[in-house]
């Protein structure tokens, strides 16, 4: 297999020579580095056979240019200094330099126009055909809004995550506190008992001073705030004495009553364990069991 020469510069210069139609003045232009846009292929040195007819170019320039005394208003062109070398592969820097060029040019042009006294700014009530249609601008607006929404949602999600984490920490703190408090209470009871043992159960008045225990703040027994529907405050039957007073209740209402009772006693969701709960009054209460209803297999699903 033939191993080809792989020196791009040489092969390209050969090709350039073939295409060449060498004419009047063959001058080499100064060494400028150049690269194509997509494929970054550079000719390291300029092709030796390229044409650069400076005089011809300047002749043509003189031919086509407008007369010198044409006012600026016809040309509307500004020249801006763009000295820094811009790396064309760095997108943001390149675009930045272009927009700076345009910005400076606009400023200068506006100053000129203002000094000429010509109107150059569009009033807000001037409606005319725009270069992009309204429907297109709607699409643009839609896209911008969608982008903004995406950003906002991402922000919200992040905040929610943070809040959840913080809430979790706070919750764990609280639980720890409660555990600690509970431990403290138990410890204090133990201590009290020990104290009493040590002081031989003497019921002096010194006790009040020695054993001031945390839980004996002097508060009387307080009723819990839980109110149960259908149960009088002083009821000690567990609330089930009145439970089956009315017999003609439909299934939904019975269930609702049952739910309400359980919710008020145990908070929402009811009690998970401890299903056996007969009290003195309810042990012999068979009103809930209809006669003959549970004949047959108890295990049959009803």
């Amino acid at each position: 297999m033939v191993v080809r020469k792989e020196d791009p510069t040489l092969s390209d210069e050969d090709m350039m020579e073939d295409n060449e139609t060498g004419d009047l003045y063959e001058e080499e232009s100064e060494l400028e580095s150049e690269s194509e846009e997509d494929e970054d292929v550079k000719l390291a040195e300029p092709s030796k056979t390229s044409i650069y007819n400076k005089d011809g170019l300047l002749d043509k320039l003189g031919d086509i240019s407008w007369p010198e005394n044409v006012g600026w208003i016809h040309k509307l062109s500004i020249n801006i200094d763009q000295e820094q070398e811009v790396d064309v592969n760095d997108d943001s820097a390149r675009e930045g330099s272009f927009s700076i060029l345009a910005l400076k040019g606009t400023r200068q042009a506006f100053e000129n126009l203002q000094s000429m006294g010509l109107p150059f700014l569009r009033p807000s009530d001037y409606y005319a055909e725009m270069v992009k249609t309204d429907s297109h601008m709607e699409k643009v607006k839609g896209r911008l809004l969608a982008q903004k929404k995406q950003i906002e949602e991402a922000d919200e999600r992040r905040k929610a995550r943070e809040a959840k984490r913080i809430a979790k920490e706070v919750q764990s703190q609280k639980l720890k506190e409660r555990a600690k408090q509970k431990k403290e209470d138990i410890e204090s009871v133990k201590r009290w008992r020990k104290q009493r043992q040590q002081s031989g159960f003497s019921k002096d008045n010194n006790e009040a001073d020695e054993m001031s225990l945390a839980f004996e703040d002097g508060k009387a027994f307080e009723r819990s705030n839980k109110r149960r529907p259908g149960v009088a405050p002083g009821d000690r039957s567990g609330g089930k004495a009145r439970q089956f007073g009315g017999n003609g209740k439909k299934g939904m209402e019975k269930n609702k009553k049952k739910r309400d009772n359980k919710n008020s006693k145990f908070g929402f969701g009811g009690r998970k364990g401890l299903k056996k709960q007969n009290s003195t009054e309810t042990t012999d209460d068979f009103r809930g069991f209809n006669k003959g209803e549970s004949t047959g297999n108890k295990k049959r699903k009803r």
Partner: protein
Amino acid sequence: MGKKRKHSEANVAEPPKKDSDAPERPKRTLLGWKDPTPTETKEIESSSPIFRNKEKVLVTCSRRISYRYRHLMLSIVSLLPHAKKDNKVESKESKGATLNELVELKNCSSCLFFECRKQKDLYLWMAKCPNGPSVKFMVDAVHTMEELKLTGNHLKGSRPLLTFSTNFDKDPHWKLLKEMITQIFGTPKEHRKAKPYHDHVFAFSLADDHIWFRNYQISVPHNESDKVDRGGLDKITLVEVGPRFCLNPIKIFGGSFGGPTLYENPFYISPNEIRALKKRKAAGKYAKKVKAKTRRKMHELENPLEADEFADMWKE
């Protein structure tokens, strides 16, 4: 095709369009008809000939142009109110005489011809007709106006402000290109379709020997239409509107679509050559592998390894 024109009108297009032979018509502005004399002293320093920019650009393309480049062409047509769009030309007719005739027929003074080869590469010819110079560019990095990331908008037909980098004044070929661009891309002042205010700016920058084109919408907070407040000039913001492209000059000719070559870009490599180079590089892989193998063999022969003392240790 264009309407048949009288010969007399064709003659008017012939002489250089700098001076107008027609009698001085009162200038037509949006506010009404103004006599030329008072405005003349304000705007034009010359005494007798009024300069009228009668630039008209013919915009065409070759057949088998792809969608992206076609949209670029349409964007440019909408940006330039003094441009006329014409039908696609056959590929055989894309050189020389036929295009010149077409431009003459349409009574235009310059031409922008988009030539698409292999449906991949776009070349732009910018020519001043009938005997002006012409340039062939290679177009890269095309973004059309329909892209949703370019959010600006401006009046259709308003005259653009043209900003050039000072690098254009450094070499004669850049100077020539700058003059051609000013004439072709600048909207004539008294054109019928030109709108009054200036709300967009074309930026032609020169970087890495390419001409980069950008089109920005100017937004500045203002109350009156001919004055900007003190701090207003600092609050100018530019939003990009229009198409984006990058031009790489290949050759400059003395005549329109032909003639003696005045300038040839020494660093230009045609896209065909680039693709060929790439393929050649990839094709050399097998050859390189074979070479590497033989090299390795030679190396081993020349530097034989010492006998390993422990080679027999595990042999039974």
